[in-house]
Protein backbone atom coordinates (compact mmCIF):
# COMPACT_ATOMS: atom_id res chain seq x y z
CA UNK A 1 0.00 0.00 0.00
CA UNK A 2 2.68 2.38 1.06
CA UNK A 3 4.70 1.48 -2.01
CA UNK A 4 1.71 2.02 -4.20
CA UNK A 5 1.09 5.32 -2.65
CA UNK A 6 4.70 6.26 -3.11
CA UNK A 7 4.67 5.09 -6.73
CA UNK A 8 1.47 6.92 -7.46
CA UNK A 9 2.88 9.98 -5.91
CA UNK A 10 6.07 9.77 -7.94
CA UNK A 11 4.13 9.20 -11.16
CA UNK A 12 1.85 12.04 -10.31
CA UNK A 13 4.74 14.32 -9.54
CA UNK A 14 6.44 13.38 -12.76
CA UNK A 15 3.29 14.08 -14.71
CA UNK A 16 2.95 17.36 -12.93
CA UNK A 17 6.53 18.30 -13.69
CA UNK A 18 6.05 17.40 -17.32
CA UNK A 19 2.99 19.57 -17.45
CA UNK A 20 4.84 22.46 -15.82
CA UNK A 21 7.60 22.15 -18.37
CA UNK A 22 5.03 22.03 -21.13
CA UNK A 23 3.12 25.02 -19.85
CA UNK A 24 6.40 26.93 -19.64
CA UNK A 25 7.23 25.94 -23.18
CA UNK A 26 3.99 27.25 -24.60
CA UNK A 27 3.69 30.77 -25.74
CA UNK A 28 0.14 31.25 -24.62
CA UNK A 29 -3.11 29.34 -25.03
CA UNK A 30 -3.20 29.66 -28.82
CA UNK A 31 0.19 28.00 -29.01
CA UNK A 32 -1.03 25.22 -26.73
CA UNK A 33 -4.10 24.73 -28.91
CA UNK A 34 -1.87 24.54 -31.97
CA UNK A 35 0.21 21.82 -30.34
CA UNK A 36 -2.90 19.91 -29.28
CA UNK A 37 -4.33 20.19 -32.79
CA UNK A 38 -1.34 18.24 -34.13
CA UNK A 39 -2.55 15.13 -32.29
CA UNK A 40 -5.54 15.10 -34.64
CA UNK A 41 -3.13 14.51 -37.51
CA UNK A 42 -5.30 16.37 -40.02
CA UNK A 43 -5.00 19.52 -42.03
CA UNK A 44 -5.78 22.55 -39.88
CA UNK A 45 -8.62 23.38 -42.25
CA UNK A 46 -10.32 20.09 -41.38
CA UNK A 47 -9.66 20.21 -37.68
CA UNK A 48 -12.42 19.28 -35.30
CA UNK A 49 -12.70 22.34 -33.12
CA UNK A 50 -15.06 20.50 -30.81
CA UNK A 51 -12.50 17.76 -30.25
CA UNK A 52 -9.78 20.39 -29.80
CA UNK A 53 -11.86 22.23 -27.23
CA UNK A 54 -12.28 18.97 -25.32
CA UNK A 55 -8.54 18.25 -25.47
CA UNK A 56 -7.81 21.70 -24.11
CA UNK A 57 -10.34 21.37 -21.33
CA UNK A 58 -8.87 18.00 -20.34
CA UNK A 59 -5.43 19.58 -20.25
CA UNK A 60 -6.61 22.38 -18.01
CA UNK A 61 -8.52 19.96 -15.78
CA UNK A 62 -5.39 17.87 -15.43
CA UNK A 63 -3.38 20.91 -14.50
CA UNK A 64 -5.96 21.81 -11.89
CA UNK A 65 -5.82 18.31 -10.40
CA UNK A 66 -2.09 18.64 -10.16
CA UNK A 67 -2.52 22.01 -8.51
CA UNK A 68 -0.57 23.73 -11.25
CA UNK A 69 -1.23 27.41 -11.42
CA UNK A 70 -2.15 28.30 -14.93
CA UNK A 71 -1.82 31.85 -16.15
CA UNK A 72 -5.12 33.71 -16.35
CA UNK A 73 -5.27 33.74 -20.13
CA UNK A 74 -5.20 29.91 -20.18
CA UNK A 75 -8.24 29.92 -17.91
CA UNK A 76 -10.02 32.57 -19.96
CA UNK A 77 -9.43 30.46 -23.04
CA UNK A 78 -10.77 27.41 -21.19
CA UNK A 79 -13.95 29.26 -20.27
CA UNK A 80 -14.39 30.46 -23.81
CA UNK A 81 -13.82 26.94 -25.21
CA UNK A 82 -16.36 25.51 -22.74
CA UNK A 83 -18.84 28.07 -24.03
CA UNK A 84 -17.94 27.23 -27.63
CA UNK A 85 -18.36 23.52 -26.89
CA UNK A 86 -21.85 24.11 -25.52
CA UNK A 87 -22.78 26.23 -28.53
CA UNK A 88 -21.56 23.51 -30.86
CA UNK A 89 -23.37 20.68 -29.04
CA UNK A 90 -26.71 22.33 -28.36
CA UNK A 91 -29.18 22.97 -31.13
CA UNK A 92 -29.09 26.63 -32.15
CA UNK A 93 -31.44 28.82 -30.18
CA UNK A 94 -33.30 31.02 -32.66
CA UNK A 95 -33.93 33.59 -29.96
CA UNK A 96 -30.24 34.07 -29.19
CA UNK A 97 -28.24 36.86 -30.76
CA UNK A 98 -24.62 36.71 -31.72
CA UNK A 99 -22.51 34.45 -33.83
CA UNK A 100 -23.25 30.77 -34.16
CA UNK A 101 -21.03 28.11 -32.69
CA UNK A 102 -19.88 27.27 -36.22
CA UNK A 103 -18.80 30.86 -36.84
CA UNK A 104 -16.85 30.94 -33.63
CA UNK A 105 -15.25 27.59 -34.40
CA UNK A 106 -14.34 28.77 -37.87
CA UNK A 107 -12.64 31.81 -36.43
CA UNK A 108 -10.64 29.76 -33.97
CA UNK A 109 -9.57 27.49 -36.82
CA UNK A 110 -8.56 30.60 -38.77
CA UNK A 111 -6.50 31.90 -35.87
CA UNK A 112 -4.70 28.59 -35.54
CA UNK A 113 -4.07 28.38 -39.25
CA UNK A 114 -2.77 31.94 -39.31
CA UNK A 115 -0.45 31.34 -36.37
CA UNK A 116 0.82 28.19 -38.03
CA UNK A 117 1.34 30.08 -41.28
CA UNK A 118 3.32 32.79 -39.51
CA UNK A 119 5.46 30.15 -37.81
CA UNK A 120 6.27 28.65 -41.17
CA UNK A 121 6.90 32.04 -42.71
CA UNK A 122 9.28 32.89 -39.86
CA UNK A 123 11.14 29.62 -40.41
CA UNK A 124 11.42 30.32 -44.14
CA UNK A 125 12.62 33.84 -43.45
CA UNK A 126 15.31 32.63 -41.09
CA UNK A 127 16.28 29.99 -43.62
CA UNK A 128 17.06 32.61 -46.23
CA UNK A 129 20.57 33.67 -47.08
CA UNK A 130 21.55 36.14 -44.42
CA UNK A 131 23.99 39.00 -44.54
CA UNK A 132 27.17 38.21 -42.69
CA UNK A 133 26.46 34.50 -42.87
CA UNK A 134 25.75 33.68 -46.51
CA UNK A 135 26.58 36.84 -48.35
CA UNK A 136 28.90 39.62 -47.40
CA UNK A 137 29.32 43.33 -47.68
CA UNK A 138 32.46 45.14 -48.75
CA UNK A 139 35.05 44.33 -46.10
CA UNK A 140 36.98 47.54 -46.40
CA UNK A 141 34.45 50.25 -47.11
CA UNK A 142 35.66 53.69 -47.95
CA UNK A 143 33.56 56.20 -46.12
CA UNK A 144 32.57 59.28 -48.00
CA UNK A 145 35.08 61.90 -46.95
CA UNK A 146 33.11 64.97 -46.06
CA UNK A 147 35.07 68.14 -46.33
CA UNK A 148 33.57 71.28 -44.95
CA UNK A 149 33.88 74.34 -47.05
CA UNK A 150 32.89 77.59 -45.50
CA UNK A 151 31.56 80.24 -47.80
CA UNK A 152 31.61 83.68 -46.30
CA UNK A 153 28.85 85.91 -47.25
CA UNK A 154 28.46 89.64 -47.06
CA UNK A 155 26.05 91.87 -48.89
CA UNK A 156 26.63 95.31 -50.27
CA UNK A 157 24.44 96.58 -47.46
CA UNK A 158 26.73 94.92 -44.89
CA UNK A 159 29.67 96.61 -46.53
CA UNK A 160 28.04 100.01 -46.59
CA UNK A 161 26.84 99.71 -43.03
CA UNK A 162 30.32 98.79 -41.90
CA UNK A 163 31.76 101.81 -43.62
CA UNK A 164 29.08 104.10 -42.29
CA UNK A 165 29.75 102.73 -38.81
CA UNK A 166 33.45 103.50 -39.16
CA UNK A 167 32.88 107.00 -40.44
CA UNK A 168 30.48 107.89 -37.66
CA UNK A 169 31.98 105.93 -34.82
CA UNK A 170 34.17 108.72 -33.52
CA UNK A 171 31.17 110.97 -33.25
CA UNK A 172 29.39 108.64 -30.90
CA UNK A 173 32.05 107.08 -28.81
CA UNK A 174 31.98 107.66 -25.09
CA UNK A 175 34.35 110.22 -23.72
CA UNK A 176 37.88 109.02 -23.43
CA UNK A 177 41.20 110.71 -23.11
CA UNK A 178 42.02 111.37 -26.73
CA UNK A 179 45.43 110.10 -27.62
CA UNK A 180 44.92 109.96 -31.32
CA UNK A 181 47.39 112.81 -31.87
CA UNK A 182 50.15 111.17 -29.87
CA UNK A 183 52.57 109.01 -31.82
CA UNK A 184 54.22 106.74 -29.28
CA UNK A 185 57.95 106.22 -29.14
CA UNK A 186 57.49 102.45 -29.22
CA UNK A 187 55.67 102.72 -32.53
CA UNK A 188 58.33 104.99 -33.99
CA UNK A 189 61.11 102.69 -32.85
CA UNK A 190 59.37 99.65 -34.24
CA UNK A 191 58.69 101.38 -37.54
CA UNK A 192 62.17 102.78 -37.91
CA UNK A 193 63.88 99.50 -37.07
CA UNK A 194 61.88 97.86 -39.81
CA UNK A 195 62.91 100.47 -42.33
CA UNK A 196 66.61 100.75 -41.46
CA UNK A 197 67.84 97.93 -43.69
CA UNK A 198 66.54 99.82 -46.73
CA UNK A 199 68.18 103.08 -45.74
CA UNK A 200 71.51 102.84 -47.54
CA UNK A 201 71.57 106.50 -48.55
CA UNK A 202 71.23 109.65 -46.48
CA UNK A 203 67.52 110.37 -46.15
CA UNK A 204 65.70 113.14 -44.36
CA UNK A 205 64.07 112.26 -41.09
CA UNK A 206 60.89 113.82 -42.50
CA UNK A 207 60.65 110.96 -44.98
CA UNK A 208 60.36 108.49 -42.15
CA UNK A 209 57.27 110.04 -40.65
CA UNK A 210 54.40 107.59 -40.82
CA UNK A 211 51.48 108.02 -43.17
CA UNK A 212 48.75 110.13 -41.71
CA UNK A 213 51.11 112.01 -39.41
CA UNK A 214 52.42 114.59 -41.81
CA UNK A 215 49.44 116.90 -42.08
CA UNK A 216 47.92 118.33 -38.91
CA UNK A 217 50.64 120.21 -36.97
CA UNK A 218 49.93 118.63 -33.58
CA UNK A 219 50.13 115.13 -35.06
CA UNK A 220 53.21 115.96 -37.08
CA UNK A 221 54.98 117.36 -34.05
CA UNK A 222 54.33 114.23 -32.07
CA UNK A 223 55.52 112.04 -34.93
CA UNK A 224 58.70 114.08 -35.45
CA UNK A 225 59.51 113.99 -31.75
CA UNK A 226 58.99 110.24 -31.43
CA UNK A 227 60.80 109.45 -34.65
CA UNK A 228 63.70 111.66 -33.63
CA UNK A 229 63.92 109.95 -30.25
CA UNK A 230 63.87 106.63 -32.07
CA UNK A 231 66.78 107.66 -34.31
CA UNK A 232 68.82 108.55 -31.24
CA UNK A 233 68.12 105.16 -29.75
CA UNK A 234 69.07 103.35 -32.97
CA UNK A 235 72.24 105.47 -33.31
CA UNK A 236 73.14 104.54 -29.77
CA UNK A 237 72.68 100.90 -30.67
CA UNK A 238 75.03 101.46 -33.60
CA UNK A 239 72.47 100.66 -36.24
CA UNK A 240 72.31 104.03 -37.94
CA UNK A 241 74.32 107.17 -38.46
CA UNK A 242 72.92 110.69 -38.10
CA UNK A 243 73.99 113.84 -39.90
CA UNK A 244 72.99 117.44 -39.50
CA UNK A 245 74.75 120.13 -41.56
CA UNK A 246 73.77 123.02 -39.30
CA UNK A 247 71.70 123.93 -36.28
CA UNK A 248 68.01 123.40 -37.11
CA UNK A 249 69.00 122.04 -40.48
CA UNK A 250 67.16 118.91 -41.60
CA UNK A 251 68.37 115.77 -39.90
CA UNK A 252 69.53 112.96 -42.18
CA UNK A 253 70.04 109.36 -41.36
CA UNK A 254 71.29 106.23 -43.02
CA UNK A 255 72.07 102.66 -42.22
CA UNK A 256 75.45 102.27 -40.59
CA UNK A 257 77.94 100.72 -42.98
CA UNK A 258 78.48 97.06 -42.27
CA UNK A 259 75.05 96.66 -40.71
Amino acid at each position, binding site marked *: MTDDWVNDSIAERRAAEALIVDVDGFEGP*LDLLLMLSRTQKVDLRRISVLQLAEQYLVFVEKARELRIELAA*DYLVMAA*WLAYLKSRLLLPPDPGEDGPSGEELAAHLAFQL*ERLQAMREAAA*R*LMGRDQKGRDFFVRGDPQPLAVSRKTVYDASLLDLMRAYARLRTRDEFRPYAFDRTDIYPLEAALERLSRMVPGAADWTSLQAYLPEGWRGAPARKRSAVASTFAATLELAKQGQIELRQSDTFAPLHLRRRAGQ
Partner: protein
Amino acid sequence: MTHPLADSQNKSLFPAPPMAEQERMIEAILFASAAPLTQAEIAARLPHGCDAAEALAHLHRRYVGRGVNLVRVGDAYALRTAPDLAYLMQSERVELRKLSRAAIETLAIIAYHQPVTRAEIEEIRGVALSRGTIDQLLELEWIRLGRRRMTPGRPVTFVVTTEFLDHFGLESARDLPGLRELREAGLLDSRPMPGRAGVDEDGDDAPETGQSELFED
Protein backbone atom coordinates in the same frame (compact mmCIF):
# COMPACT_ATOMS: atom_id res chain seq x y z
CA MET B 1 36.41 74.19 -63.39
CA THR B 2 36.16 70.53 -62.62
CA HIS B 3 34.61 71.29 -59.29
CA PRO B 4 31.52 69.12 -58.86
CA LEU B 5 29.51 72.10 -57.76
CA ALA B 6 30.35 73.90 -60.95
CA ASP B 7 29.16 70.88 -62.91
CA SER B 8 25.72 70.87 -61.43
CA GLN B 9 25.36 74.59 -61.66
CA ASN B 10 26.34 74.98 -65.25
CA LYS B 11 24.15 72.29 -66.63
CA SER B 12 24.77 72.89 -70.27
CA LEU B 13 28.46 73.60 -70.05
CA PHE B 14 29.57 70.09 -69.28
CA PRO B 15 28.31 67.15 -71.26
CA ALA B 16 27.48 64.04 -69.22
CA PRO B 17 30.28 61.46 -69.22
CA PRO B 18 29.86 58.51 -71.60
CA MET B 19 27.66 55.69 -70.28
CA ALA B 20 30.67 53.39 -69.79
CA GLU B 21 32.22 56.04 -67.59
CA GLN B 22 28.99 56.54 -65.63
CA GLU B 23 28.92 52.80 -65.08
CA ARG B 24 32.41 52.69 -63.63
CA MET B 25 31.66 55.71 -61.46
CA ILE B 26 28.69 53.90 -59.92
CA GLU B 27 30.79 50.76 -59.62
CA ALA B 28 33.32 52.70 -57.54
CA ILE B 29 30.67 54.42 -55.43
CA LEU B 30 28.82 51.19 -54.61
CA PHE B 31 32.05 49.31 -54.06
CA ALA B 32 33.19 51.83 -51.47
CA SER B 33 29.98 51.63 -49.47
CA ALA B 34 28.99 48.84 -47.11
CA ALA B 35 25.42 50.10 -46.87
CA PRO B 36 23.00 50.16 -49.79
CA LEU B 37 22.68 53.50 -51.57
CA THR B 38 19.50 54.77 -53.16
CA GLN B 39 19.45 55.80 -56.77
CA ALA B 40 19.00 59.38 -55.61
CA GLU B 41 22.06 59.14 -53.36
CA ILE B 42 24.09 57.73 -56.22
CA ALA B 43 22.83 60.33 -58.67
CA ALA B 44 23.73 63.11 -56.25
CA ARG B 45 27.35 61.99 -56.36
CA LEU B 46 27.55 61.75 -60.14
CA PRO B 47 28.27 64.68 -62.42
CA HIS B 48 25.27 66.44 -63.85
CA GLY B 49 23.45 64.80 -66.71
CA CYS B 50 24.21 61.22 -65.75
CA ASP B 51 21.54 58.56 -66.06
CA ALA B 52 21.96 56.58 -62.87
CA ALA B 53 19.12 54.18 -63.68
CA GLU B 54 20.58 53.15 -67.01
CA ALA B 55 24.12 52.92 -65.67
CA LEU B 56 22.85 50.74 -62.80
CA ALA B 57 21.15 48.44 -65.30
CA HIS B 58 24.43 48.11 -67.21
CA LEU B 59 26.34 47.46 -64.03
CA HIS B 60 23.81 44.87 -62.90
CA ARG B 61 24.25 42.94 -66.14
CA ARG B 62 28.02 43.14 -65.85
CA TYR B 63 27.99 41.48 -62.45
CA VAL B 64 25.54 38.69 -63.26
CA GLY B 65 27.23 35.39 -62.44
CA ARG B 66 30.26 37.06 -60.89
CA GLY B 67 31.63 36.51 -57.39
CA VAL B 68 30.08 39.81 -56.41
CA ASN B 69 26.58 40.82 -57.51
CA LEU B 70 24.68 44.04 -57.75
CA VAL B 71 21.55 43.60 -55.67
CA ARG B 72 18.53 45.74 -55.15
CA VAL B 73 17.49 46.43 -51.59
CA GLY B 74 14.20 48.29 -51.36
CA ASP B 75 14.85 51.44 -53.34
CA ALA B 76 18.59 51.13 -52.85
CA TYR B 77 21.45 49.21 -54.44
CA ALA B 78 24.44 47.37 -53.05
CA LEU B 79 27.26 45.07 -54.10
CA ARG B 80 27.17 41.77 -52.20
CA THR B 81 29.13 38.56 -52.54
CA ALA B 82 27.33 35.75 -54.32
CA PRO B 83 25.54 33.58 -51.73
CA ASP B 84 26.82 30.35 -53.30
CA LEU B 85 30.34 31.32 -52.26
CA ALA B 86 29.43 31.65 -48.59
CA TYR B 87 31.61 28.67 -47.71
CA LEU B 88 34.73 30.65 -48.71
CA MET B 89 33.97 33.42 -46.27
CA GLN B 90 34.55 31.72 -42.93
CA SER B 91 36.84 34.49 -41.76
CA GLU B 92 34.31 37.22 -42.52
CA ARG B 93 31.39 35.44 -40.92
CA VAL B 94 29.84 37.39 -38.10
CA GLU B 95 28.13 35.65 -35.24
CA LEU B 96 24.45 36.40 -35.66
CA ARG B 97 22.62 37.16 -32.49
CA LYS B 98 20.44 34.31 -31.38
CA LEU B 99 16.87 35.47 -31.54
CA SER B 100 14.13 34.16 -29.29
CA ARG B 101 11.21 32.34 -30.83
CA ALA B 102 9.01 35.27 -29.87
CA ALA B 103 11.33 37.70 -31.65
CA ILE B 104 11.48 35.63 -34.82
CA GLU B 105 7.71 35.20 -34.95
CA THR B 106 7.12 38.87 -34.21
CA LEU B 107 9.54 39.82 -36.99
CA ALA B 108 7.73 37.58 -39.45
CA ILE B 109 4.34 38.99 -38.43
CA ILE B 110 5.60 42.55 -38.89
CA ALA B 111 7.13 41.72 -42.26
CA TYR B 112 4.04 39.95 -43.61
CA HIS B 113 1.37 42.13 -42.02
CA GLN B 114 3.02 45.54 -42.04
CA PRO B 115 2.07 48.10 -40.99
CA VAL B 116 0.91 46.28 -37.89
CA THR B 117 0.10 47.36 -34.36
CA ARG B 118 1.25 45.75 -31.19
CA ALA B 119 -2.33 44.61 -30.45
CA GLU B 120 -2.51 42.90 -33.83
CA ILE B 121 0.78 41.11 -33.25
CA GLU B 122 -0.52 39.94 -29.89
CA GLU B 123 -3.74 38.73 -31.42
CA ILE B 124 -1.96 36.71 -34.06
CA ARG B 125 0.39 35.13 -31.55
CA GLY B 126 -2.31 34.78 -28.91
CA VAL B 127 0.03 36.07 -26.24
CA ALA B 128 1.20 39.39 -24.85
CA LEU B 129 4.31 40.83 -26.44
CA SER B 130 7.13 41.48 -24.06
CA ARG B 131 8.79 44.83 -24.22
CA GLY B 132 12.19 43.29 -24.89
CA THR B 133 11.07 41.62 -28.10
CA ILE B 134 10.23 44.84 -29.88
CA ASP B 135 13.30 46.52 -28.43
CA GLN B 136 15.53 43.79 -29.75
CA LEU B 137 14.13 44.11 -33.26
CA LEU B 138 14.37 47.88 -33.14
CA GLU B 139 17.96 47.60 -31.99
CA LEU B 140 18.82 45.33 -34.88
CA GLU B 141 17.29 48.02 -37.09
CA TRP B 142 15.11 45.38 -38.69
CA ILE B 143 11.91 47.18 -37.76
CA ARG B 144 10.97 50.77 -37.24
CA LEU B 145 7.88 52.73 -36.31
CA GLY B 146 5.44 53.30 -39.14
CA ARG B 147 2.58 55.74 -39.19
CA ARG B 148 0.10 55.77 -36.39
CA ARG B 149 -3.09 53.89 -37.17
CA MET B 150 -6.02 56.24 -37.68
CA THR B 151 -8.18 54.42 -35.16
CA PRO B 152 -9.11 55.35 -31.61
CA GLY B 153 -6.03 55.53 -29.46
CA ARG B 154 -3.97 56.16 -32.61
CA PRO B 155 -1.71 53.16 -31.94
CA VAL B 156 1.78 53.11 -33.42
CA THR B 157 2.49 50.60 -36.14
CA PHE B 158 5.64 48.70 -37.00
CA VAL B 159 7.15 48.13 -40.42
CA VAL B 160 10.35 46.46 -41.59
CA THR B 161 13.37 48.47 -42.69
CA THR B 162 15.79 48.53 -45.61
CA GLU B 163 18.28 46.94 -43.23
CA PHE B 164 15.85 44.03 -42.82
CA LEU B 165 15.62 43.65 -46.60
CA ASP B 166 19.40 43.90 -46.88
CA HIS B 167 19.96 41.34 -44.16
CA PHE B 168 17.65 38.78 -45.70
CA GLY B 169 18.63 39.54 -49.28
CA LEU B 170 15.17 40.77 -50.28
CA GLU B 171 14.57 43.24 -53.06
CA SER B 172 11.40 44.42 -51.42
CA ALA B 173 8.84 43.32 -48.86
CA ARG B 174 6.83 41.97 -51.79
CA ASP B 175 9.48 39.31 -52.27
CA LEU B 176 8.89 37.74 -48.88
CA PRO B 177 8.70 34.00 -49.38
CA GLY B 178 5.17 32.67 -49.78
CA LEU B 179 3.58 36.10 -49.51
CA ARG B 180 1.22 35.53 -52.43
CA GLU B 181 0.04 32.15 -51.18
CA LEU B 182 -0.59 33.51 -47.71
CA ARG B 183 -2.54 36.40 -49.10
CA GLU B 184 -4.59 34.19 -51.41
CA ALA B 185 -5.37 31.88 -48.50
CA GLY B 186 -6.71 34.93 -46.65
CA LEU B 187 -4.20 34.42 -43.87
CA LEU B 188 -2.98 37.99 -44.02
CA ASP B 189 -6.50 39.34 -43.58
CA SER B 190 -7.38 40.99 -40.37
CA ARG B 191 -10.52 39.08 -39.45
CA PRO B 192 -12.27 40.23 -36.34
CA MET B 193 -13.62 37.65 -33.96
CA PRO B 194 -17.32 37.08 -34.74
CA GLY B 195 -19.47 38.72 -32.13
CA ARG B 196 -16.45 40.14 -30.41
CA ALA B 197 -15.75 37.54 -27.75
CA GLY B 198 -12.02 36.95 -27.99
CA VAL B 199 -9.59 36.99 -25.14
CA ASP B 200 -6.92 39.10 -26.68
CA GLU B 201 -8.77 41.44 -28.87
CA ASP B 202 -9.11 45.01 -28.02
CA GLY B 203 -12.42 46.28 -29.27
CA ASP B 204 -11.20 49.81 -29.72
CA ASP B 205 -8.34 48.66 -31.76
CA ALA B 206 -9.82 46.03 -34.01
CA PRO B 207 -8.82 47.37 -37.38
CA GLU B 208 -11.06 46.56 -40.28
CA THR B 209 -8.43 47.99 -42.56
CA GLY B 210 -6.36 45.27 -44.11
CA GLN B 211 -2.61 45.78 -44.08
CA SER B 212 -2.36 43.50 -47.03
CA GLU B 213 -3.17 46.23 -49.52
CA LEU B 214 0.45 47.23 -49.12
CA PHE B 215 1.36 44.13 -50.97
CA GLU B 216 -1.22 44.29 -53.71
CA ASP B 217 0.40 44.01 -57.05
